[in-house]
């Protein structure tokens, strides 16, 4: 086996996208009330789904790498731009707290019948146009504080990948425990029947 196949063909990405949208929908992450309840700590679905997905995918890719079935260095690994990514991340957190979605979940929101998601999407198109229109003056910020090319947590810390995976799994488990404790104290997770009322 010689992964990645580097085949971004229509069918492969359509199928992967299908499962992406499906699993976001079945976990309730097309609902802006559920998404924003993560930030009030009432409903930890966002943290749980995202963190479990990251740990499962990272562990799976590591396993394929260890078995010699994957050229890990052929995978796309983003280079850190500390300032732009921290500010951009904060803008997306703010955008979700106010608007109720992020780019991916807005698509799920729209295709589960939520018309507010369409308005959010129109807002995103305006925001990206504003970014492009001001790109010349933003370029300093965009390129500032660049980290090493494609740096991973393993390269940053010098720790073996299996240990980082264990630490992340431990963090996820701690989040599940803390989440369950807070969820019962803050009104409980937001259910599908509550959203349908």
């Amino acid at each position, binding site marked *: 086996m010689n992964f990645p196949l580097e085949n971004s063909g229509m069918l492969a990405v359509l199928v992967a996208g299908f499962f992406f949208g499906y699993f976001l929908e079945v976990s309730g992450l097309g609902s802006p009330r559920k998404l924003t309840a993560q930030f009030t700590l009432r409903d930890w679905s966002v943290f749980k789904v995202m963190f479990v997905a990251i740990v499962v995918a990272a562990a799976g890719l590591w396993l394929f790498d260890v078995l010699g079935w994957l050229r890990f260095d052929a995978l796309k690994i983003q280079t850190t731009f500390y300032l732009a990514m921290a500010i951009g991340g904060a803008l997306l957190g*703010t955008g979700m707290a106010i608007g109720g979605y992020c780019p991916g979940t807005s698509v799920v929101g729209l*295709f589960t019948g939520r018309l507010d998601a369409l308005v959010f999407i129109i807002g995103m198109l305006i925001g990206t146009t504003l970014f492009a229109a001001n790109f010349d003056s933003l370029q300093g910020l965009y390129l500032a504080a660049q980290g090493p090319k494609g740096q991973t947590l393993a390269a940053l810390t010098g720790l073996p990948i299996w240990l980082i995976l264990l630490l992340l799994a431990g963090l996820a488990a701690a989040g599940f425990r803390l989440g369950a404790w807070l969820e019962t104290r803050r009104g409980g997770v937001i259910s599908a029947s509550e959203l349908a009322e």
Partner: protein
Amino acid sequence: MDNRQPREFWPPLVAGIGLGLALMGMFLFTGHGLGANGFFTRTVVWLSDATNPAWAGANAYFKSYLSKGHPLDAWISWEIAGVAIGALAGSLTARRFQWKIERGPHTGVAARLALALGGGVLTGFGAPLARGCTSGLGLSGGATLAVAAFVFLIAFFAAGLLLSALTRRLWQ
């Protein structure tokens, strides 16, 4: 139980494992992860080029995208089509599909739509600045243990937690 009631959401652990396997599959097939914002960036480039080609052609940010052609040639457009079909399939088969403007019990329609637009503008500005979104940078970067993903995610959750002190009344 009344069978017109929506079925409940899956436990986050089960859905998270499914999403993780889909993400891993995407990496194994294509070499890159799942994304979302790239589709909207491509749409903006395409709309700008169609309505104001002189401006779009001179724009420094659009330059790398303009050479890539129509959005339908981009893998991310087909992935987003898959996301849409997956969301439809999930919600229709579980009776969760519902036309509505989702908002908190004390928030009016006009206020909700204004905030959706404002939140969208901030997101549309922030995602190209960060070079990715919650999916393309946070989730997919996280799967490769990229430092970039964790910088993004920490800032994302920190800002959301801080802001929710002000915005929680909009939703609850």
